[in-house]
C-alpha cells in the first residue's frame, strides 16, 4: 500500500538539456516504473518538404539538431546525390569527413560534460566544455558557424580548408588531445565517479540487439556496429578500428566515447595527411527523381535518411530515423529497478538527442 511516489521528470529539468518527460514511479528511490513521453520539441521538419525546395532543405535538415547538424546535412545531401548520381569530388569527401569527425569530437566532449553534470561534478563539466570550445573554434574558423556548419550542398561542400587552416587544426588538436587525456583519467579512475558509473544500467549485447540500439551506446556492450566501416565518404581510405567495450554499463559507455574522441582526432590527422587537391564541388543541374536510403554513423549511432523525389524541386518524402529513437528503448529497459539518482545518468548515458528524435 502506498509508499510509492510519482515524480514528473521533465520536461523542464536541468539535468536534461532537452525537454522529455518521464513519469517515474519510485519506491524509496527505487524506480518501479518509468514511462517516457516526448513531443515537446516536435516541429514537423520532415513536412517542410512540401514547402521548400530540395536545396533549401539542406539548411533545414541541418537544423534537425544543433549538435550533429553537420551529419544531418551530409546525410541528406548524400541521399540526393545518390538519387541524382552525382559523383562528389574526392577533396569534398575528405572535407566532409574532417568536419564530421570534428562534430563527433565536440559532441562527445559535450556529452562528457553533460555526464559530469549529471553526476554532480561541476568542475569536470566546465573543463569538458572548455576543451570543446577549442573544437568549436576550429569549426568556426573553417565553416563560419559554431554549431550549425552550413557547408554542405548537393554536389560537394561550400567552403574549403586552406593549408594554413589545416596546420592550425593539427596544431590545436594536439592541445585538445592532451587536455582530453587529463580529464579522461578522472572519468575513468576517480572513485566518486566510478561509484556512479560502474555497474549502473547494464545491458547485454543480446539486449542491445533485441532492442535495436545503436552507436557507442551499443558498442559499449560489445556490439560491433560502426557504420563508418561501410566506407562512405573518405572512410574507406582511413584506418578505422571500432571502439568497443564489453561491460555494457555506464562506465563502459563513457570509456567508449572517450576512446572515440581520440579515434576521431586520429582520423582527422589521417584525413589531413591524405587529402587530395582538387575541386570541392561539382555543379548540379536538374531535379532529383527517384528514391534512396543513406546510413551514417552519427556521434550517437546510426542515422538513416530516406528521400523520395519526383523530378520537381519539391521532393515527395523525406524521412529520418535517428539513433536516439532507437536508443530510447534501451533507456526504458535500463530504468527498470534503478535508483532515482541514476535517472539523470541513465538518460544522459544514451546521449539522448530529442530534437532529432522528434524533429
Amino acid at each position, binding site marked *: 500500500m502506498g509508499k510509492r511516489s510519482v515524480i514528473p521528470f521533465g520536461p523542464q529539468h536541468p539535468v536534461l538539456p532537452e525537454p522529455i518527460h518521464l513519469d517515474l514511479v519510485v519506491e524509496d528511490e527505487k524506480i518501479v516504473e518509468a514511462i517516457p513521453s516526448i513531443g515537446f520539441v516536435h516541429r514537423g521538419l520532415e513536412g517542410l518538404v512540401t514547402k521548400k525546395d530540395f536545396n533549401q532543405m539542406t539548411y533545414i535538415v541541418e537544423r534537425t539538431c544543433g549538435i550533429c547538424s553537420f551529419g544531418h546535412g551530409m546525410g541528406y545531401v548524400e541521399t540526393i546525390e545518390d538519387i541524382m548520381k552525382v559523383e562528389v569530388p574526392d577533396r569534398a569527401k575528405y572535407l566532409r569527413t574532417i568536419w564530421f569527425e570534428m562534430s563527433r569530437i565536440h559532441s562527445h566532449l559535450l556529452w562528457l560534460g553533460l555526464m559530469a553534470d549529471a553526476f*554532480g561534478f*561541476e568542475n569536470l563539466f*566546465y573543463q569538458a566544455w572548455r576543451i570543446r570550445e577549442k573544437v568549436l573554434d576550429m569549426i568556426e574558423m573553417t565553416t563560419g558557424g559554431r554549431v550549425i556548419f552550413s557547408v554542405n550542398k548537393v554536389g560537394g561542400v561550400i567552403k574549403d580548408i586552406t593549408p594554413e587552416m589545416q596546420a592550425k587544426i593539427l596544431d590545436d588538436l594536439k592541445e585538445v588531445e592532451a587536455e582530453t587525456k587529463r580529464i579522461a583519467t578522472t572519468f575513468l579512475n576517480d572513485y566518486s565517479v566510478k561509484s556512479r558509473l560502474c555497474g549502473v544500467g547494464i545491458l547485454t549485447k543480446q539486449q542491445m540487439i533485441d532492442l535495436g540500439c545503436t552507436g557507442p551506446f551499443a558498442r559499449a556492450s560489445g556490439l560491433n556496429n560502426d557504420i563508418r566501416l561501410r566506407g562512405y565518404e573518405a572512410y574507406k581510405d582511413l584506418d578505422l578500428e571500432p571502439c568497443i567495450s564489453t561491460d555494457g554499463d555506464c562506465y563502459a559507455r563513457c570509456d567508449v566515447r572517450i576512446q572515440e574522441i581520440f579515434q576521431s582526432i586520429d582520423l582527422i590527422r589521417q584525413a589531413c595527411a591524405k587529402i587530395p587537391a582538387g575541386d570541392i564541388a561539382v555543379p548540379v543541374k536538374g531535379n532529383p527523381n527517384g528514391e534512396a536510403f543513406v546510413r551514417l554513423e552519427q556521434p550517437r549511432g546510426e542515422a538513416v535518411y530516406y528521400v523520395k523525389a519526383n523530378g520537381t524541386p519539391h521532393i515527395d518524402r523525406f524521412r529520418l530515423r535517428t539513433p536516439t529513437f532507437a536508443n530510447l528503448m534501451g533507456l526504458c529497459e535500463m530504468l527498470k529497478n534503478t535508483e532515482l*539518482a541514476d535517472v539523470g545518468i541513465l538518460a544522459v548515458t544514451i546521449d539522448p538527442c530529442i530534437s532529432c528524435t522528434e524533429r
Partner: protein
Amino acid sequence: MNTNYIRIIAVLAYVILAPILGAFFDGLDRKISARMQRRVGPPITQPLHDLKKLFAKENVNVNKAQSFLILSYLVGTLIAGALFFSGGDMLMSIFLFSTSTMFLYFTCMVATSPYSTVGANRELLQALAYEPAELLTAVGFYLAVGSFKSLDIVSGKWSAILFLPGFFVAFVFILTIKMRKSPFDESTSHHPHQELIKGITSDLGARNYAIYTLTEYYENMYMLGVVALFFVNSNPWSYLGAVVAIFVLYFLEILIDNSSARVKSGLMIKQAWWVTFIAAGLNLLILMLIK
C-alpha cells in the same frame, strides 16, 4: 559577571556577524571554485547581492504555512547557535539544531510536491548520516574536557584536538554533508543540475529561499565554530590557530567539492557511518582507556 558579558557579546557577535561571515565564506567559495574551474567567477560580494535581490522579489509560496515554518527554521537555528556561542551546552545545541532542521523538513513537506518531498527525505538521510558523528563530537569534548559546555572547552589548558584527532576526522567528514557540498550534496545542491534540481529548496519562493540561505550561513558558521572549538584553549594564540584551521579546512572543502562527483545517498550513509565508527570509535576507545 565578567563571563556573562562575554557570553552576551559572543551571542550578539554570532547573530550579527554570522550572516556576514557566512556570505563572505560563500563568496570566497564561489570565487575559488570559479578559479579552480578556470573561470573568473562572480565578485566576492555576490552572495550579498543575491540575498538583497531575493528579498526584493515578490513573496511566493506554494503553501501558506511555508513562510512561518521557514522563519521558524531561521530563528530556531539562531537560538541553537546562540546557545552554543554563549558557552552553553553543546549536546543540547546539537539537539536544538536537529529540532530546527525539522522545521526545514516541515517546510518542504507542506509543499507537497515531488521534488521537495524527495529532497526532504534526502535531508533526513543526511541527518541520519551526520548525526552520530555530531553527537560523538560532543561526547569527545565531554571526555576531553569533562563538560559539554563550550565555555569550559575554550578555557581548557590544551586544545581539544590533541585528544580528539579521530573525532575531528569524523567531524570534518560530516562537515561536507552539513554544508551540502559535493560529494554529499544529496538533498539540495548549489548547482541545480542534479536529479533533484533544487531538492529541498525546490518549492521555496525567492524570499523563502533568502531566509533559507541566511539560515545556512548561520549553520555553517556554527559548524566552523565547532571546528574552532577543537583548537582553541586558554592561550589567546590558539585563536589564531583556530582561524587558520578554519580557512585551511574551508579550502579543503572547496577543493573536495570541485574534485568529486556526487555519490549516492546509500554510499554517503555507509561512508559517514564507517568513518564515524572507526575514527571516532577508536579515539573514544583510547580516550576511555587513558582517562
